[in-house]
């Protein structure tokens, strides 16, 4: 064996060792969370790493303490509305900024990007006052409205729209399609991976959204899953088995979505960085 082949082998072993360690660090919290949902509070505190037989008990206590189905329903409806509306709105905007490109639109986009720098907490109080005056507290629409248009999604769609061949648009115009038809018939089907990535990001952000719903959702009937999990940790006595059961239920949808869309997600993110 030559020395370069040995060097290659060592490099490869080190790389795999590094990847294994990093994967372990990433996956272990999830594993611990799922396993702990099967254990009692005392076992969780004792660091038990194998599942026990207390899942049903933990879920039963969770149901007794919190309105789990209401929270799940609210989170799903909120998230679905945000995903559909924000993808429609932001992809149209991203497409427009790229295809009907001129220097003024670039400036508008610059201002939009600048708004990413304003922290949400700075907007929270005036937004609450506005939503309260409009009677939008405790309503789905109150949750959805601020998330419909985000600079990040507009930027993602705009970057990916660069790869969309302009000749197709010219050809479609010659064939008699109007601008809206070109967008829906030509652009949307081609950009499927971008939509999948945007859907994944929006789903995760919206599902895990905590601060805004906490500000505007004031009744038990409008509670969302992250708010429910937070409720479990604020008492004098914390049942860690129940908390982990709550966290598991809250985490599962995002894990499932990510597994289904991860291929498109990586493709589109790589595409937008190009």
């Amino acid at each position, binding site marked *: 064996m030559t020395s370069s082949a040995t060097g290659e082998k060592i490099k490869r072993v080190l790389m795999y060792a590094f990847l294994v360690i990093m994967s372990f660090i990433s996956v272990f919290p999830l594993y611990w969370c799922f396993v702990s949902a099967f254990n009692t509070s005392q076992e969780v505190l004792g660091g038990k790493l194998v599942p026990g037989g207390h899942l049903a008990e933990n879920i039963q206590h969770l149901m007794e303490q919190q309105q789990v189905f209401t929270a799940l329903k609210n989170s799903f409806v909120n998230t679905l509305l945000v995903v559909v509306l924000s993808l429609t709105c932001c992809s149209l905007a991203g497409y427009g900024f790229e295809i009907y490109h001129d220097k003024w639109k670039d400036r508008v986009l610059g201002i939009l990007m600048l708004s990413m720098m304003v922290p949400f907490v700075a907007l929270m109080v005036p937004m609450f006052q506005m939503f309260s005056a409009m*009677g939008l507290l405790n309503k789905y629409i109150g949750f959805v409205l601020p998330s419909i248009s985000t600079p990040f999604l507009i930027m993602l769609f705009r970057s990916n729209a660069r790869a969309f061949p302009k000749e197709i648009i010219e050809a479609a115009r010659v064939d008699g399609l109007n601008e809206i038809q070109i967008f829906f018939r030509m652009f949307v089907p081609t950009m499927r991976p971008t939509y999948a990535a945007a859907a994944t990001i929006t789903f995760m952000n919206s599902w895990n959204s905590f601060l805004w719903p906490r500000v505007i959702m*004031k009744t038990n009937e409008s509670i969302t899953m992250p708010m429910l999990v937070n409720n479990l940790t*604020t008492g004098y006595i914390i049942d*860690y088995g129940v908390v982990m059961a709550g966290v598991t239920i809250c985490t599962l949808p995002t894990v499932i979505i990510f597994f289904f869309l991860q291929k498109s997600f990586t493709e589109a993110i790589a595409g937008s960085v190009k």
Partner: protein
Amino acid sequence: MKKLLAVLLALTLVLSMSAVAFAAEDGKITIWTWDPNFNIASMKIGADMYHVDHPDVEIEIQEVQSEDIETAVAQAAVAGDLSTLPDIMLCQDNSFQKMVINYPEVYTDITDKYDFEGFGEAKAAYSTVEGRHYGIPFDAGTVVAAYRTDYLAEAGYTVADLTDITWTEFAEKAKEIKEKTGKPVFCTQAGSGDWILIMIQSCGASMFTEEGAVNLKDNEAIKAAITVYADLVKQGIILETNSWDEMIGTLANGSVCGTFNGCWILGSIMATADQSGKWDITNLPSLEGIEGATHYSNNGGSSWAITQGTDVDLALDFMQLYRNVDFYNAILPTTSAIATFAPAKEAPNYTAVNEFMGSPVFATIVEYGMSVPSNITGAYYYDARNAMATAITNYINGADLDSELAQAEDTVNFAMGF
């Protein structure tokens, strides 16, 4: 377009009017509180008891977290619209004065409308501002020192040996207990500052003067408390954990001989079923050489506030429950919420021997609660606590205590705008 705008405006008007009508509805009490196993469960039992004589009154209990209630009060006060608030809301005792001082328009002065006799003086003082009462006391945060009796026996001690002692005596005995059992005697969360506050309140001292000025650098009680605490940490008698969860873990795993904290800590201790019969409580050691030093203090607890602009008479009628011994007796078994209303200690569930602890601990705690000296929390309690916690950590790491406390005082003064 004009038509659409008119419709939208009309709709907003109708919605806001219906919201006002909703808030002013007769025979309905809305309550905001947190913790389904404790405050909410207690209120539900209270609502059932109240419904026996008032079946027509609707009582709606909403789960809202403590910080969210404070945010909602601030938002409502700033917007000048109290209709978004409930009739009754719970407030942490340490925040009560801050909230009343900052948003006086929200809280109803109930001094002449509610009988405060029987409530612990220190407890009622938390919700008192300039001699006026704004809160109805609820659960006790009376401090207990809880010990593993089996570990103490291993070292040749009983809980009686650790009762009515000073911190110096405690340090001597704790050293021996640690040597013989190999376990730290107490555990606490590092950098929280709670223990120092417990110690200084046991002397009737505060981080603020009665005039509201910050009082850290020349406060003898604070200096004595920090010196005692740091010494015990350095000797390994007190184990400092990095997080609250880790601290609860040391109790559950039996890796320490005990803890001292608000009596609500017993809930976490009693959750470890395999340790039944191995625990007992007593009072806490007192600080030597400090005027007014006692064995009693407080940490945590909360009180109920009634919002202005609501049906105050109805809310107060409902809140008479908190002067009812039967109510405290009824909530104790399911919630472990311990009263600050002295007559409750005679209730059957209070005088009964607690199976887990092997003594009538709840009556003992109510008794302790009546001897707790009061302190001043003011509007900058948490700023002062955090500044002091930094001073404690730095002192343990070798800094000079006087200059650290002077620095902490400057930090709080800056926060207060001086």
